[in-house]
């Protein structure tokens, strides 16, 4: 199988604003994730899960090391190219949904399509947004504002938005942390389905062990050796 993500000797350090000392937020010696894999990222709070996902999506650049995602060396790419890369290759889902409050569900989905720079017509974008929202069970909520939707519904809009540009990679950072068990289940099922049907590479970070029960591969940031061991397979 093709390798979708490969990290080599990646480190992210921050200078502490108080003492000025260097703090290591992330250290990954080797990590390889194959196309279509469903990988969970586990670790206590502050273990670097979010930092890792941001490095993979190009929101953050590593302090050192190589980041190869879908054939692109993100650590050497300039910011504008990383932005475009992210728009086209990575769909992101967050704990706090992060929908644009003044746009409807449908507009939130089409907005994501604008940044990928594709040649889609306005009508095609609209139709794709309708299709995606219907597929997450929100066919009847197309024109609702985020504030008019429940938490579970908002996160479903986010799943549709993340799939807007048909990216090869789906990144979810604590997507179920703010949801009740029923909605948690719904969201996980939607993510599994995207992973199975579209052969999307799914990366899900959570500190919740239960949420990772459906994952074939779990990367534990608390336990570096485990991670290295997994990467070998």
């Amino acid at each position: 199988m093709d390798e979708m993500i490969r990290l080599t000797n990646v480190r992210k350090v921050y200078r502490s604003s108080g003492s000025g000392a260097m703090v290591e937020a992330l250290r990954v010696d080797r990590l390889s994730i194959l196309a279509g894999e469903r990988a969970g990222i586990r670790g206590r709070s502050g273990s670097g899960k979010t930092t890792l996902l941001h490095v993979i999506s190009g929101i953050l650049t590593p302090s050192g090391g190589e980041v190869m995602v879908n054939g692109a060396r993100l650590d050497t790419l300039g910011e504008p190219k990383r932005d475009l890369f992210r728009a086209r290759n990575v769909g992101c889902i967050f704990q706090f949904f992060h929908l644009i409050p003044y746009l409807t569900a449908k507009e939130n989905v089409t907005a994501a399509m604008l940044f990928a720079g594709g040649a889609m017509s306005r009508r095609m974008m609209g139709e794709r947004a309708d299709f995606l929202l219907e597929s997450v069970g929100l066919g009847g909520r197309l024109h609702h504002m985020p504030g008019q939707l429940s938490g579970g519904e908002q996160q479903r809009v986010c799943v549709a938005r993340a799939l807007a540009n048909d990216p090869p990679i789906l990144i979810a950072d604590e997507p179920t942390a703010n949801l009740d068990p029923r909605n948690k289940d719904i969201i996980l099922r939607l993510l599994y389905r995207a992973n199975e049907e579209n052969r999307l590479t799914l990366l899900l970070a959570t500190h919740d062990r239960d949420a990772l029960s459906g994952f074939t591969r779990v990367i534990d940031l608390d336990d570096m050796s485990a991670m290295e061991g997994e990467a070998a397979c």
Partner: protein
Amino acid sequence: MLMSISFKYITKRLRQYALTTLVAALAISMTIAVTLAADSLKDSVVYASMPFDMIVGAKGSAAQLALNAVFLRDTPVGNVDQAVYERYMNDGRARRIIPLAFGDSYRGSWIVGSSEALFTLRPSEREPEIFQIQEGRFFQDKYELVVGSEAARRLGLAVGDTVKASHGMSDILDEELAASRVHNNHIYTVVGALKPMRRPYDLGMFASIETFWDIHGGGERGVSAFIVTPWDYVGLMSMYQELNTGSEAQGVFPGEVAGDLFGVIGRGEEALRLVSYAVAALGFATVILSLYWSVLNRRKENAIFRALGAGRSTLLRMVVTESAMVMLVSAPLGLLFGHLVSGFIGLYLRRVMAVYVPASFSVQELYILAAYAAIGAVGAALPAASAYRQDVAGLLAGE
């Protein structure tokens, strides 16, 4: 499509944007109104001065003399040296000499004593006389009065009416006070009403200078000032030189003293200009701050757009689009307000001074709009710079 996001953002915060737009429009209109008013004031002074090539009067304030002769304003100057007047009357160096006598008024309107030559006064030899009879005739005998169109309108005078003049020029409309200064024995009869000239003389009333000599009596045949129309420019300059190097009288080009003519108004205009600049600066600052604030306000939304793959240039485009939308609405609105306000100022000047203020478009308006666009661009660049420093990961971490 990006524009539609900006548009939705604006409609969502319509009240804030309406306010910003209004403030911007106000800033534009203030600057434009003051500029237009100042310009048209100067234009109208020059226009009003045109028929008066040179005014000759007693030594003293040139501005006062010009204000007297052209605008029928200010305190009348003392009489000009009679010998000078007679010399110019007789030596043929001027095409026309028109005597002027000031000192009497009727309910705020100046009564000007002059000769029949007054009715030949014209802006240039190619143009018709500015005095045109609407009704009745010009004065011939003593105590016959010809009234300007504005004076007639305001005082409700018509041919056949009689008028008791008062001595002094105060704009007193108080009947009792005015009555105390009335030359009781001297009653004028209105024999003619003038067509509107669109000049300050519309506010005046005109009688023969013999009437003045009769009233003020004592055999004194004084003249307050006289208008000189030259044969040519060289002649005019030589007369001007001669008068102003001599000690008997002064010659004044009213068009030239137009600058200090409105000494007070000029200073007022300067102050108004400063105020308008201050208001404009405040307005512009408000616009910039409002745009800046609106970006600060949605740092989070911008971070989300970044996470979705929007580049900084895309965010910049969205901000610029917004300020462009604000400008697109406020610029024409400001132009409209500005012209309305300057129109009202013009109307006011016309009513009070009978100076004709032509409605105009000034090139300076383009400068003002250009400056405004530049400031709008800065207003857009500031928040863009703030978006540039944005910590996307940090903002995404929060709720």
